[in-house]
């Protein structure tokens, strides 16, 4: 059972009478990599800033290692931030930027030199001490920002979409490095991003946020395989959401409407399933299609095949008019022509029933 | 505790400027208004009995002439600096190579003592000055031309002194304009002149108006140029006001004249604000 290092309790945040955060509670474990994931405007950055101390919650509390900090200034918490645009001090060089936190604490010069050197090697920027900030590349600036924030050995490191400005390849590389760094230092990371692939890749747990609330918290597999709400299902990975009615629920199975038939889906232990509007969630990679009618399937017309490099993405339209996306890794298969009628089908065990939320 | 610290910073930054501006700008200006309604005592002091005689006095033809002359001089100065200055600024923005040098050369007269620069013209224009000397020696004229101590000389002096004030905002405004607009107009078939009239001028209007304000307003009040280059032949508002305070010792009348001058300036600034809706500093700095 891991220790809880940060607790957010019923935080509400209003900006000029507009509720940006409607009510959030969250417990973060020591040493974990937790990501706040959501679209722009969902409140994830505001939540981060409340933890850092740049915003005060309208109501609710923030407890760092059990102590209330929601009223403390940013410089009074042992929490450091890596900013979205790095916010490096332009009038100082790399050494001075990283040393800043130590300098204002009046640490002695020899100690500073030693620790900055260690940090530079940790972020793989050895020899960069005297370099000017504006001569650095995006990736290098990123590392300086990380080094600057870590030198104080904070209890929590907050990262606000740190990789947003980097190109794809560099981003993927930095994701790996950041994860390695976190594991090595065993510092709690709270990470904010809108990129769900990034979140799935790096996190121990993900908190999916939408319009000021947390829709679901779980590890990446939970979030992907067992989304609880339509929003989470739609936001994470590609998904097909087919409207359905729930016929029957018992301890092990849910029986739902599927076309003209009924389908039995394994009841995957949802708590408080309130049977609001429901959807069948089936991921594109789990759908197959054929010309002959299968046992349980839906009629569909092929609209388009797209070649995405590693997969073929096929779009088809079912009778209700909804478009279904199917992904196939087998690129050598003969493709059914556009406009042809097919039957799409899938295994019930790949289905998740999802509520409106 | 945090609030007190916050407030100290706020007070520290806001108080000095507020106090200074209120005490040394607002209050003296209000006081001028007040004094303009007072009377002059026999020995040159202020007698605190209210009157509007200072203002009614200005209705006399003598003073009306001074006002009109000043406005005309300021207007002609503005017009000339605009007509000569716009092409200058426009061509200057086209020179990419020595941009820094050009900027420096344009700004230098802006900051150099206008007195000194006026003196240069006196040297050139006076009866034993350079032009007369050259013309006499070559026999073109028999007697030296009296070029100083006339409205003409004053105009040259004013245009010369005010020229950088017009050019600087023009230069900034033209420089900032995205040349893509000109290319778009040409692409759509407009001739050079039409492009200039319908694209360039409207887009640089903020600079034009800023320049006009920066020239017109001080021109109304510049008195040492008419003093040095016009002598007693030229009397403008500025000279009149200076006279009231330094020689004639009629402070109330001088105050009233100042108020009229402020009004003339204010009306123009309001025109600017209406026309463009921006602040001046964006164009000058």
């Amino acid at each position: 059972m891991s220790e809880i290092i940060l607790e957010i309790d019923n935080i509400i945040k209003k900006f000029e009478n507009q509720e940006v955060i409607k009510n959030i509670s969250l417990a973060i474990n020591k040493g974990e990599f937790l990501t706040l994931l959501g679209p722009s405007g969902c409140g994830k950055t505001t939540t981060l800033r409340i933890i850092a101390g740049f915003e005060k919650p309208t109501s609710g509390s923030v407890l760092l290692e059990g102590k209330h900090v929601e009223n403390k200034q940013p410089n009074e918490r042992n929490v450091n931030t890596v900013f979205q645009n790095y916010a490096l001090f332009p009038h100082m060089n790399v050494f001075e930027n990283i040393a800043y936190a130590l300098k204002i604490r009046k640490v002695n010069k020899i100690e500073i030199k030693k620790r900055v050197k260690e940090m530079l090697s940790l972020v793989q920027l050895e020899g960069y001490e005297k370099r000017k900030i504006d001569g650095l590349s995006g990736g290098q600036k990123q590392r300086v920002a990380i080094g600057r924030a870590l030198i104080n050995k904070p209890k929590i490191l907050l990262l606000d979409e740190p990789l947003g400005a980097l190109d794809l390849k560099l981003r993927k590389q930095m994701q790996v490095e950041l994860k390695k760094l976190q594991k090595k230092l065993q510092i709690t990371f709270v990470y904010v991003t809108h990129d769900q692939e990034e979140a799935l890749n790096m996190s121990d747990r993900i908190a999916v946020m939408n319009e000021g609330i947390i829709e679901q918290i779980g590890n990446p597999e939970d979030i992907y395989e067992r989304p609880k709400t339509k929003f989470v299902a739609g936001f994470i990975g590609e998904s097909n959401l087919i409207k359905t009615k729930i016929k029957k629920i018992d301890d092990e199975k849910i029986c739902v409407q599927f076309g003209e038939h009924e389908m039995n889906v394994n009841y995957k232990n949802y708590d408080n399933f309130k049977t609001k509007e429901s959807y069948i969630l089936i991921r594109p990679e789990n759908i197959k299609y054929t010309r002959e009618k299968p046992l349980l399937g839906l009629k569909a017309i092929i609209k388009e095949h797209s070649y995405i490099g590693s997969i073929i993405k096929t779009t088809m339209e079912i009778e209700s008019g909804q478009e279904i996306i199917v992904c196939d890794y087998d690129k050598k298969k003969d493709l059914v022509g556009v406009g042809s009628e097919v039957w799409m089908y899938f295994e019930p065990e790949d289905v998740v029933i999802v509520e409106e939320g | 505790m945090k609030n007190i610290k916050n407030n100290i910073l706020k007070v520290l930054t806001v108080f000095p400027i507020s106090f200074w501006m209120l005490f040394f700008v607002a209050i003296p200006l209000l006081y001028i208004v007040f004094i303009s309604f007072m009377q002059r005592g026999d020995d040159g002091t202020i007698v605190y009995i209210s009157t509007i005689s200072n203002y009614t006095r200005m209705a006399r033809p003598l003073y009306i002439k001074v006002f009109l002359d000043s406005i005309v001089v300021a207007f002609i100065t503005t017009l000339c600096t605009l007509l000569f200055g716009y092409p200058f600024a426009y061509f200057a923005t086209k020179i990419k190579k020595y941009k820094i040098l050009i900027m420096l050369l344009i700004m230098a007269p802006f900051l150099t003592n206008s007195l000194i620069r006026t003196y240069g013209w006196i040297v050139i224009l006076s009866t034993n000055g350079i032009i007369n000397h050259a013309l006499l020696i070559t026999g073109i004229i028999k007697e030296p031309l009296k070029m100083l101590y006339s409205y003409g000389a004053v105009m040259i002096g004013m245009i010369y002194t005010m020229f950088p004030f017009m050019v600087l905002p023009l230069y900034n405004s033209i420089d900032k304009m995205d040349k893509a607009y000109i290319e778009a107009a040409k692409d759509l078939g407009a001739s050079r002149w039409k492009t200039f009239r319908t694209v360039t001028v409207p887009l640089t209007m903020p600079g034009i108006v800023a320049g006009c304000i920066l020239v017109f307003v001080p021109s109304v009040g510049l008195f040492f140029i008419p003093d040095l280059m016009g002598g007693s032949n030229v009397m403008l508002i500025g000279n009149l006001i200076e006279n009231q305070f330094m020689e004639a010792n009629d402070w109330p009348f001088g105050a009233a004249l100042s108020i009229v001058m402020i009004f003339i300036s204010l009306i123009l600034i309001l025109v600017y604000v209406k026309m463009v809706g921006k602040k001046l500093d964006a164009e000058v700095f």
Partner: protein
Amino acid sequence: MDSKLSKGLERTYIFCIFAFLYVPIAIIIMYSFNAAKSNVVFSGFTLDWYTKLFSDDDVITALVNSLTIATFSTAISAVIGTLGAIGLKRHNFKGKSVISLLVYIPIVIPEIIMGVSLLILFSTLQIDFGILTLVLAHTTFCTPFVLINVKSRLAGFDLSIEEAAMDLGASKFTVFRTITLPMIFPAVVSGAMLAFALSLDDIIINIFLSGPESTTLPIKIFSMLKFGLSPEINALCTIMLVTTFVVLILSQGIKLRREK
């Protein structure tokens, strides 16, 4: 080629205008080295007028006065202007729009009005006219220049940098001292240099507010011009021109170096 011709015409025009601007200045400089007293005939190169200038007590006093006033005014307006810029940009308070407007007034109204208004103020308060009144007056018209300069620098200021400093442990005062101030410093300096040049060159306000003991250089030149031309003037003017030009280059140099 039409564009070559037009380019040539453009350059010629620019050259003519520059000539118009600088010929009077050039003439003064040239004649400051003229051996003869005349301002027309050039009879030989000499530094006499410069040496005469330096032994002229009146001129030296005026010079010292001008420099003193300029230094004090610049220093005070740098402080008030910088603090004011930060205050106006970052804080809200009652009467903010009034003060913001007042700041522009010294720049935008004719100088004579400023001279007159301060003249009335100081004589009502019965303050003797002299260095003090001049410093107060110069500060009044210099501060807006510093303030506007710093304010426009603050407009492009990335606040997240200050947040980063706070995040790393700096108190608000430390942030101001180690981050904000160093970053706006070039704007403060270039504003201050502008103020210095303006103070040195001011005539109108000086005419109204100086006393018998506190003649400034421009006043000295003015009286020299009115009451009789002596070639020393050329030397004096040349020195002032050169000084202003140097200050200008320095201030622009600083501004440019920062913008790189």
